[in-house]
């Protein structure tokens, strides 16, 4: 009996997370901050650091996929949650009969949708226009989904900052995300890094996404493919835990 109730509750919570995600996709996909931080920024960064450099189409594609998943997924929560706090709609979600983790999972899924959708742009251009060869589409799909989930949860940590202003969250978020871009083997491959720089790179979640994209597009990576997949899965959980704790803390403060 109790087991049956638990199953119903679990089913309800999954459905509620999905409902939140679908609603957010409908409501926020064309908001200016989402376009700026989630769509334009990764392309801008890629072209800033890659143009007129002698890199192959496939290498460029792997870099761009890692950047889009990282920046787009990690922007969703920091853009959407303060907007919802300002409109009062976040209260509607907090008052609904679902756990905070369910709500955060819904928000994680939104970032994943956005990142997956934005990633299809460089992928289609790379494969269809520039004739890039992708070594393993299955790994690519798994990589985009897993990396987006992990980075979306990463963004939720910043979204827990008790404020109703997108700008107040984007500043610290940018302060953390931009340096990661330079230490994660995106512009300087892991193999070419000094030992101390490589040790630093292993601390960055983006390193494993870039390596996974290298496996998927180039067919070769520096780390073990399964290690990349396992670590990104683990990072999803690791990022959700402090995100949940900090969001609960925001509730104590009245946000």
């Amino acid at each position: 009996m109790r087991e049956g109730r638990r199953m119903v509750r679990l089913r309800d919570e999954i459905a509620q997370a999905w409902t939140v995600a679908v609603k957010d996709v409908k409501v926020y996909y064309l908001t200016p901050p989402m376009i700026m931080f989630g769509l334009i920024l990764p392309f801008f960064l890629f072209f800033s650091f890659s143009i007129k450099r002698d890199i192959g189409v496939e290498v460029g594609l792997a870099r761009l996929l890692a950047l889009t998943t990282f920046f787009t997924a990690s922007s969703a929560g920091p853009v959407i949650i303060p907007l919802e706090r300002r409109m009062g709609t976040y209260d509607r979600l907090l008052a609904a009969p679902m756990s905070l983790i369910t709500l955060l999972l819904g928000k994680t899924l939104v970032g994943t949708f956005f990142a997956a959708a934005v990633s299809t742009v460089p992928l289609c251009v790379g494969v269809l226009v520039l004739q890039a060869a992708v070594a393993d589409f299955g790994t690519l799909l798994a990589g985009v989904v897993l990396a987006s989930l992990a980075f979306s949860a990463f963004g939720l940590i910043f979204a827990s900052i008790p404020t109703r202003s997108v700008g107040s969250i984007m500043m610290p978020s940018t302060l953390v995300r931009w340096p990661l871009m330079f230490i994660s083997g995106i512009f300087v491959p892991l193999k070419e890094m000094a030992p101390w720089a490589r040790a630093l790179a292993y601390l960055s979640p983006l390193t494993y996404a870039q390596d996974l994209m290298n496996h998927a597009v180039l067919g070769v990576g520096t780390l073990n493919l399964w290690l990349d997949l396992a670590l990104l899965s683990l990072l999803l959980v690791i990022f959700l835990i402090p995100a949940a704790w900090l969001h609960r803390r925001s509730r104590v403060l009245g946000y």
Partner: protein
Amino acid sequence: MKNAIEVENLTKYYGNLLAVDHINFGVRQREVFGFLGPNGAGKTTTQRMLTTLLEPTEGRIVINGHDLAHEAYPVKRKMGLVPEESNVYTELTAWDNLMFTARLYRVSHRERTERARDLLEAFGLWEKRDVKVEDFSKGMRRRLSIAMAIIHKPTLLFLDEPTPGLDAQSARAIRDLIRQMNAEGTTIFLTTHQIEEANQLCDRVAIINHGQIAAIDTPERLKRAFQRVQSVEVALEPGGNAHGQALAALPGVTTKIKMGDKWRLYTEDPSALLPRVMDYARSKDVRVISLSTLGPSLEDVFLEVTGQQVGTVRHEAREGGSQGQGRKARRGGQR
């Protein structure tokens, strides 16, 4: 029968600011309970704690037998919330807003489509169901916000300032809905500073001031407890406006307020004041156009309980647009 809401020692600090100060009260099943107070008194903070949006610093909230700190889920399933701001998704249509909320509360597909249609028709929004809410007026958004709060048929409904800023027709429709839902068995927790609204709708009211419950009872009993704020209302002609100072100086008058072309004279003993007013009119050779005695209104009770001089707030309201704005500034506003 156990109370719908039981609040024990509820306290909330924002940093060093004490917003709600160890309050205790109960809300009975199927009751319309008014929660009154000036801006910044702790009304919204209390309501946010009751609706799980804010964690108390101290104290206990039990709703329908469930301790909110440990068993929020069954409470949330049966609870509806209409916040002060209409928190609707302006990028979605009215229909999509309702469907989204119904899905969150796990209302079945058949039930949610039927209920959404009924509610949209009842609120006069059916024709606009496919219009994005960004094109809705304030009143339409308010109605939609209420429809979203009750689509899952809650047994306990929280309303925070449901009618300010609405036209008379919309405000009346919302008051009628509150009465109807209450008649059908829903417990209503109404947070407001619309005192006349509370007087019309509520079985009991609590008045909160500086984070503490200052009074709690039925509106009529509260009025009876404040007999000292009875008044005499008089209109004199000619030169009605010129008699204020002289009328205020009559023995027994505690406060005077100009009410249009009339003067309201507050007194503890209206029967003694009436002949003095007549004598004054005769002595000045002016006609008494109207003369009446008034019992204390709930607003008078409110002003007495919250320690505001009778009449002061009315003048502020005329000058500043809403009651007690000065208080909001002093207390740092509502959170």
